[in-house]
């Protein structure tokens, strides 16, 4: 295992160092279950510039985690299958790479942080083992060197007494500390793209802020691109550059962060924003979105959001699905009535 992985990477045909670090085009993922086919992702597209932070926003079950897993190539197959689209890393379609080469992309170029660090870390191995494994398998380091690097990493993510804690097991860490271990693990091999899947959801509010600050700091230092997957609009506002809002496996609105907050162009985005309690609107009734998200085996025709939408008209209830309307040069929305929605504010 002493091969230098980076050398190999350059050997990937068609690799263009100047291309965008990540570009997703019309991605489709479905799950073949006993109860029918669940269309989890239905044509998601987005791209990511170097150093950029893109937030993917949506309720649970909207397909955002599945998208992340598809990018990483860690979908459970079966039942999950990528049925269409492209995932380009520096111009190379990862979906077409043989597994051995694709594996080298993981953690080296694109790394991922999971939501629940307790279950995402293997309970029967020490933290040091799980960190060091990356250096040993990808960089061919000895156990001793790998351990030294692990300690450095734990220092980097500001875990106190790293030298002792490196020999401990995940369940001996607190929630926040465990998430720091996850971050350390993701950063270990200096990836260009980091995908963070709800990195703070399982944490206390105060700890959440610390973790987000840490992430932001590390991203700045290393000029990484970050895909931040979350359902929490509050988290997004501070760190994201651009936002993709997902609903029922589709991106229904895509825009720079400030534009969205200022004037959402899709009723769903609007509903999400309105459900954030705001101090300045104290006393007013919180307007949450009515109803439940659709079952993925049975997505409504036309616009998937139509049963819950206050703007919905007949045109929304029939196929074909709503196209993406170009709202401005840098933003799109999938709503026939985006103008009304936007102007409504």
């Amino acid at each position, binding site marked *: 295992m002493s091969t230098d992985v980076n050398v190999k990477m350059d050997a990937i045909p068609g690799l263009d160092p100047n291309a965008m670090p990540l570009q997703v085009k019309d991605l489709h993922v479905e799950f073949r279950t006993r109860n029918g086919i669940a269309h989890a992702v239905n044509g998601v597209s987005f791209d990511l510039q170097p150093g950029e932070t893109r937030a993917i926003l949506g309720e649970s079950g909207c397909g955002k985690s599945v998208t992340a897993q598809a990018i990483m190539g*860690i979908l459970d197959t079966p039942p999950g299958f990528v049925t269409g689209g492209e995932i380009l890393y520096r111009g190379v379609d990862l979906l077409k790479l043989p597994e051995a080469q694709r594996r080298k992309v993981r953690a080296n170029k694109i790394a991922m942080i*999971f939501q629940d660090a307790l279950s995402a870390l293997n309970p029967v191995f020490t933290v040091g083992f799980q960190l060091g494994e990356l250096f040993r398998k990808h960089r061919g380091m000895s156990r001793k060197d790998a351990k030294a690097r692990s300690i450095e990493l734990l220092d980097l993510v500001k875990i106190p007494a790293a030298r002792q804690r490196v020999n401990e097991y995940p369940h001996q860490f607190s929630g926040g500390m465990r998430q720091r271990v996850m971050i350390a693990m993701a950063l270990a091999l200096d990836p260009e793209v980091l995908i963070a899947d709800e990195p703070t959801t399982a944490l206390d509010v105060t700890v959440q802020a610390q973790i987000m600050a840490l992430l932001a700091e590390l991203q700045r230092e290393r000029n990484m691109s970050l895909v931040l997957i979350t359902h929490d609009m509050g988290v997004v506002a501070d760190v994201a550059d651009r936002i993709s809002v997902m609903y029922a496996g589709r991106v229904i609105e895509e825009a720079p962060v400030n534009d969205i907050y200022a004037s959402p162009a899709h009723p769903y985005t609007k509903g999400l924003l309105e459900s954030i309690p705001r101090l300045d609107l104290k006393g007013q009734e919180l307007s949450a979105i009515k109803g439940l998200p659709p079952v993925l085996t049975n997505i409504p025709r036309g616009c998937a959001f139509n049963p819950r939408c206050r703007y919905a008209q007949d045109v929304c209830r029939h196929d074909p699905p709503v196209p993406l309307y170009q709202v401005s040069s840098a933003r799109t929305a999938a709503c026939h009535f985006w103008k009304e929605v936007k102007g409504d504010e």
Partner: protein
Amino acid sequence: MGRYVIRRLLQFIPTVLGTMFLLHYITSLAIQFSGNPVRAIFGDRTPPPALLAAVTERLGYGDPCLDQKGNPCFGLFLDRMQKIFSLNPDFGVNLRLRPVTELVSDALPYTLKLLVIAILFQSIVGIAAGVWAGLRSGSFADNLVKISTVFLISVPIFVLGLVVREFVGVKFGNVLRGQEWIPEVISRGVFSPGFKPDYPLASLIIPGMVLGAVSLATTARLTRTSIMENLRADYVRTARAKGLANKRVIGVHTLRNSLIPVITFIGVDIGSSMAGAVVTETIFNVPGIGRLVTLAARTGESSVVIGVVTMLVLVVLIANLLVDILYAVLDPRIRYE
């Protein structure tokens, strides 16, 4: 860790004593209700009462409490405990006046060999089949393993044993024995229809496999479900996200976790395997513990039954204790509870 072991040890003591008393009480009741087992030695011939009394006395069945139905015979129990937990453990003698410790030490090596073979067979084949099926959930391999293991569990072990002895040991073995080029250790040892002193290990292989068969099925099923559950675990996904080779994801991150319940099962199963030896040893004529205890139970030699079963239970309990400790070693979550 230390505290954990101590706690388990403390729980161990009342269990051992309780189990031994239970056995003592059962065998005492047996004598109280069904009479002096010594009488059976003489068979159809009615012995002179004096001779009967003399033999009864020598065998330790003379205690008057054994004539009172329902009497728990605490005194006798204390006597027995003192003898068992002395420097020279004394578990009593059988009707032929051989000490139970000697009977057991004669028989134990065979049963142990049988058990080792059974456990090796059960773990190697069972885990391999379970992993194979678990990794290919829903495939032909999976269904094959699923169906064959359920079938194996459903067939009574004595039927399995008889069929194997007649068809593998006798019929197939005779074919092999007709071939000059096959080494004797295979044709006369491994494929012998039962235990053979000339090939003390080779001739135990097939009986051991029969003994391990049921547990093998259970092991395979357990491994399969465990692998399937763990493959969905978040940390396996993490391992993949780390760009590790599939071999390592399965071999290190999945297997280690999946095997914890399997190893625990195999450990706990030693007890039932020993009991399963009762059947296997009879069919394959292995002079081990199982055969000993069945014969003793049939003739009502309570001193042997209580002695052997007590020793077996001690073995089982110690095995369980070791398994618990092993469990703690394997799964750090237990250790720091």
